[in-house]
């Protein structure tokens, strides 16, 4: 199994090196004539009004938290999906119960309006 991952490792290394190389080429070939106007943050021609790091709606956190939970659910579903034929009815029902419990959570989210983007 491990030997199959050697090309993957090399591929990842090449992917990173390739991106780095392209940017390096850009630095070597392109001109560098910075001035303060050019380097200022782009805001459609205006001077920047305030700090760019602003406060964001708490809703983004909620999306991220719910995403973690559903991502875990998917992680549980993956091994189940490929062995479904071997574990038969019992395995199927155990996942039906698992999904059933989580669908309760999903309905709760829905009714509470957590999925509503205002």
């Amino acid at each position, binding site marked *: *199994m491990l030997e*199959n*991952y*050697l*090309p*993957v490792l*090399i*591929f*990842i290394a*090449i*992917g*990173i090196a*390739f*991106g780095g190389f*392209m*940017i390096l*080429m*850009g630095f070597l*070939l*392109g*001109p*560098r*004539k*910075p001035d*303060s106007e*050019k*380097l*200022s*943050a*782009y*805001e459609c021609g205006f001077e*920047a009004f305030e700090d*760019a*790091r*602003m406060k*964001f709606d708490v809703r*983004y956190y909620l*999306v*991220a938290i719910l*995403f973690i939970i*559903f*991502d875990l659910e*998917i992680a549980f579903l*993956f091994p189940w*999906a*490929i*062995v*479904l*034929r071997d574990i038969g*009815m019992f395995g*199927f029902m155990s*996942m*039906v119960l698992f*999904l059933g419990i989580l*669908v309760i959570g*999903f309905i709760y989210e*829905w009714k509470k309006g957590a*999925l*509503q*983007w205002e």
Partner: protein
Amino acid sequence: MLVELIQSFFAGLGWPWGLPEWMQVGLVILAKIVVILVPLMVCVAYLTYAERKVIGFMQVRIGPNRVGFFGKQMWGLGQPIADAVKLMFKEIILPAGADKLLFLIAPVIAMAPALAAWAVIPFGSEMVLADVDASLLYVLAITSIGVYGIIIAGWASNSKYPFISAMRSAAQIVSYEIAMGFALVGVLMAAGSINLGDIVAAQQGGFWQWFWLPLLPLFVIYFISGVAETNRAPFDVAEGESEIVAGFHVEYSGMPFAVFFLAEYANMILISVLASLLFLGGWLSPLEGLLPESVFEITLLGSLLGPGLHWLVVKTLIFLFFYLWFRATFPRYRYDQIMRLGWKVFIPLTIVWILVVGVMIITGTPPWFDVA
């Protein structure tokens, strides 16, 4: 096939030249990676050309038609090369107040996963660089790293538009990743394997045996989620030029911008290849089961009609054309509509269909699941 060709080419040169074994192994792997990456880069370059041409024709324009080779115009075929060269000679602007290191790392983080995912993509029944068992899971995991490129770019620029865009697109990408994951669960169930090669092999038996038919809702959801994952129109609020100019790469110029561009198009091709592998039988021929067996044994015509890399390419091109078509046809979704579609439509639909597929497998519904 191509890989064996290259190996035999090196063997003809008197390979190995007395190198230590690990170096031989490394060089063979490197050669294979080059064989995958070079056509991929050419595809990316000409996808940008195809995009401009196709959308041009759809809007009754001609599209790029000036830059050619050898002093001829050649329908503008030289355009992507000229664009790449131009970007290479452009100044790289590092905005004041930016986190300079992260600003430059961000495009690399966006691109490396988009390329590394190709390590496990099979191009034929034996044509795969790394035949890892959990290859689909690997693709899902490595592409989920790509979102960091966008988040870091938005944060490191120290500018408002990129930051807004980064937050929006991160929330969008993670939302659609769930729908995509659930759709993939259906494929895994139908195939009974998590290996991409085995998933294609499970679709043997002609056009009506491919997974697009029993998994039709998941197929549609997968591809739409794929469009949303790659931040393409009509889900391109991350770039939304009418409100936040160009989104997370407002402050990028020259080569770092080109790298972001490359990552986006490499991801588009990746999603298209995966869609053809998972739902349209990959390299399998649609004529299988329709034509008599003897047809496939004819020397040249048989191999053309039979399974092969060319079918995978054709199917991928169909999905890529859909990408371009969507962009020309649909107006941009509003952000609340995007979130509604992902959470309130796709997730319930996929959960229901997973249960339907489960029942079909347990009861052995013909014609797809009757063989245990």
